[in-house]
């Protein structure tokens, strides 16, 4: 026989004016299992809570129903009060007499009757409540950061500086990402490499950071606080412990005509190469696809010239296992190539380039050492056309979103061009100028007003080559849609920022969701911008959507703060409102038959297979098991399970069944 206490709150006049609270308490007192019932003016006030605590102690209550405001309001308050009186907090339920009753109905018998029935439903539910204890999950205090661009660098440094171990994985031979390719950065025009390279070095030297370059995530298993990452270390074909980074091999390599990724295809590199002079680590890798030795078995020049005999042609990929407690995904973005644009020549015209390629032309470390020379013949272009929104905001191209960074970098490009080519003429075709950001609008105005960049509001319909010139045909919508035709020497397309290659596969490995454009999805666009729907996995930077550097760094630090917050706990404490697969004595072990259809229903991959073995280790039965670290308590599996072998703590079948029957019982 249970001993439930029922406490009806008047909430001042809020409930009391329409519901006869005394009558509700009186009715409650006569309900089966109720040992004590009373009403009070303000149950959430200190004296109100004391009243509850005293009643619990005095009447040895084993369950409490508080008839008050919505549980979304004061459930934590009353559960805490119960806990303070020694009652398990999960034995306290709230009957919503305010939002669902007194505020929506007029004063009268019907309303009071409804209040009584609501209380009755919850009394019957609470009689079947079980005491629950919060779930403690241990945490491995080591983070995995995937992607070594500025976002990954920032996140890794922030976490490492909080005193936690970090593993940073980068798929390229060097960290640095797109930021290392940029010339100057808006709106301050400070040199990108000058601000980035110190950070790269800091990563390499940080005692808390383990850096794996030329490496990729192979798989990730486990759950928040307890992930196991398998990381593939691609064979670099050198012994890094011997290599001194002298660079002799790269100067002697006879394969010199490979398009350089770092220079966005505008420069050339060798088969054994360091992507750029400031690379971290500054040790070469052999590109097996282009290396003569790997292709034909001949050559081997690098092996011969290496003073420390560090070349290892026979090296193979290695897979290492790392235990981590949290993952930060910072895999960045990419830009569309010019070959995406038939109207602009499908990538056939050498002098139609992307914004990223222009960065390399403008960069002091680039193929032209910072001089603006067009790729086809190396001449300095006298007239350059910049086209914003190439692909972006164009549903016909399948990219309805704004790539966000193009307005600003196009203004910067035009400005840099004007600074470098005196007497040059530049045009920017744009749809709108989106310069929201600190000092951004001023920057664009400077390009227009001080550097005399010609801004033309309109789209470019077509580019074609004629007599060595690129004919750019567009329209000026501010001049009454006048057709504009410009004979340009070079055209720079601000091509859309798109998700990085392989982002879909990575998302599937991590079990995180992504949007139709394969950018990773945050748990909530506003309130949980760096979390994913998979607990313990965070995202930052342009892998979520195109972002500029300040925003990327801000989200990276945000994600790092989330990781640090997670690691600051001795262990992970979670609400015990999770699903549980029943267990019983042998030979049944569990009524679960192991069909594992629940696995396909669970949005959180929280359902695992558990093998029940006999003493000799032979598997007797395979049954489902809910990982309480992952389960969020939605209960979809519970409703689906045919044999009712899964139940949801706090909303169990017995509780809900009893509540439904009780709510209808007082009929007639």
């Amino acid at each position: 026989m249970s001993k439930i206490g029922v406490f009806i709150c008047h909430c001042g006049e809020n409930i009391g004016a329409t519901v006869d609270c005394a009558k509700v308490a009186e009715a409650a007192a006569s309900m089966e299992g109720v040992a004590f019932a009373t009403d009070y003016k303000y149950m959430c006030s200190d004296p109100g809570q004391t009243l509850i605590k005293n009643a619990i102690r005095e009447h040895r209550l084993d369950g409490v129903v508080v008839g008050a405001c919505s549980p979304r309001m004061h459930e934590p308050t009353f559960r805490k009060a119960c806990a303070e009186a020694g009652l398990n907090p999960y034995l306290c339920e709230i009957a919503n007499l305010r939002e669902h009753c007194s505020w929506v109905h007029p004063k009268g018998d019907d309303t009071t009757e409804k209040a009584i029935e609501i209380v009755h439903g919850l009394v019957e539910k609470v009689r079947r409540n079980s005491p629950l204890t919060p779930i403690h999950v241990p945490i491995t205090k080591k983070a995995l950061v995937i992607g070594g661009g500025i976002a990954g660098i920032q996140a890794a440094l922030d976490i490492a500086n909080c005193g936690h171990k970090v593993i940073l994985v980068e798929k390229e031979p060097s960290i640095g990402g797109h930021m290392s390719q940029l010339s100057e950065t808006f709106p301050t025009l400070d040199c990108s490499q000058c601000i980035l390279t110190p950070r790269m070095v800091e990563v390499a030297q940080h005692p808390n950071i383990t850096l794996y370059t030329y490496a990729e995530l192979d798989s990730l298993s486990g759950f928040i606080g307890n992930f196991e990452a398998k990381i593939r270390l691609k064979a670099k074909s050198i012994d890094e412990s011997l290599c001194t980074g002298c660079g002799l091999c790269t100067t002697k390599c006879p394969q010199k005509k490979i398009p350089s990724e770092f220079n966005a295809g505008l420069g050339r590199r060798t088969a054994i190469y360091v992507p750029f002079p400031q690379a971290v680590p500054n040790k070469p890798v052999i590109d097996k696809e282009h290396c003569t030795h790997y292709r034909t078995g001949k050559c081997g020049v690098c092996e011969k010239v290496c003073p420390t005999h560090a070349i290892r042609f026979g090296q193979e990929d290695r897979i290492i296992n790392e235990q981590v407690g949290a993952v930060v995904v910072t895999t960045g973005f990419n830009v569309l190539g010019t070959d995406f644009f038939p109207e602009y020549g499908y990538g056939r015209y050498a002098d139609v380039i992307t914004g990223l390629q222009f960065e390399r032309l403008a960069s002091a470390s680039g193929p032209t050492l910072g001089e603006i020379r067009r790729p086809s013949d190396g001449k300095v272009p006298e007239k350059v056309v910049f086209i914003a929104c190439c692909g972006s905001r164009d549903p016909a191209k399948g990219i309805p979103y704004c790539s966000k960074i193009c307005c600003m970098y196009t203004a910067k490009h035009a400005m840099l061009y004007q600074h470098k080519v005196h007497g040059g003429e530049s045009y920017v075709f744009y749809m709108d100028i989106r310069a929201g950001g600190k000092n951004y609008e001023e920057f664009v105005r400077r390009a227009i007003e001080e550097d005399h960049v010609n801004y033309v509001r309109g789209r470019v319909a077509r580019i074609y080559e004629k007599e060595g010139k690129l004919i750019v045909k567009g329209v000026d919508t501010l001049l009454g849609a006048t057709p504009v035709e410009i004979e340009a020497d070079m055209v720079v397309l601000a091509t859309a920022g798109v998700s990085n290659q392989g982002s879909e596969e990575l998302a599937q490995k991590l079990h995180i969701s992504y949007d139709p454009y394969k950018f990773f999805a945050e748990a909530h666009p506003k309130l949980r911008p760096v979390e994913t729907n998979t607990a313990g996995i965070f995202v930052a930077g342009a892998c979520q959507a195109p972002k500029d550097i300040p925003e990327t760094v801000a989200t990276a630090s945000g994600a790092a703060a989330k990781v640090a917050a997670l690691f600051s706990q001795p262990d992970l404490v979670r609400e015990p409102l999770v699903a549980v697969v029943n267990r019983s004595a042998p030979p049944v072990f569990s009524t679960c038959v192991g069909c594992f259809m629940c696995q396909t229903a669970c949005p959180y991959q929280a359902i695992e297979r558990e093998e029940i073995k006999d003493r000799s280790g032979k598997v007797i039965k395979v049954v489902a098991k809910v990982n309480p670290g992952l389960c969020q308590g939605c209960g979809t599996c519970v409703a689906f399970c045919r044999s009712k072998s899964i139940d949801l703590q706090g909303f169990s079948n017995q509780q809900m069944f009893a509540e439904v029957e009780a709510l209808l019982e007082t009929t007639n």
Partner: protein
Amino acid sequence: MNTGFYPGCSLNGTSREYNESVRAVAAELGLKLTEIDDWNCCGATAAHSMSRELSVALPARVLALAERQGFDEVLVPCASCYNRLSVAAHELARDEELAAKVGAAVGMAYSGKVRIVNVLQYLQEHAAQLLPGKIRHNFAHRVACYYGCLLVRPHKVLGFDRLEDPQSMDGMMRAIGAEPIDWAFKTECCGAGLSVSRTDLVGKLSANILGDARDRGAEAVVVACPMCHSNLDMRRTAINKCLDEPTDIPVLYITQAIGLALGLSRKALGLQRHIVEVKLQ
């Protein structure tokens, strides 16, 4: 496959040679085309600028007739008719209210079962596989494939070929041994909408097209639209006024080019009807 044929007004007037060459090529390849009985005007040019209902009702009647007469698809060689029929089918499928109104006005309902195909689609789907054994001699010329505006736009309605750089005609030309050039004016405007009222503009716009084709070494311009053809062919005097140097580059319907490769007579293909003489074999 029961293919209906909708010639529209152009193919019975200014572009009789298009009509003749489509039928001649189909007959040579053993493909059956049945003209839709009692067809009417598609309403191009005028109707859609005056009344939406009228602009849909006219093609709707044609489509309803085609459906009633049991055709699976209708070949519409005229790009303008093709465009109007397709737009009407698109609107009828998306606007129940309009469909009901139009159905009442026409006196027949159209359920949307008939597929509307342009000449390029038709050739690709039916003729391409028959060509290899039938070609008498290759049409070995450099050609500029000119698609014009109506065959590919609006893309969300027609869903045909690549919007900015269509390729279907280029492919057919390769199939008969021609060499399509890479050029910039495939879908540029020829000025057809102003063909009668502003011949000066037509001259200028069409001159851009012919000039570029010539400069890039094309020996002929190939089209699949009566308006394109009449502008580029008939308005040659106006065009030549806008060019630094007059051009006599001929303009052929795609079916004429294919007909030549199939060894059909020049008369059967109506080549004698052109203003600019076609000397190519």
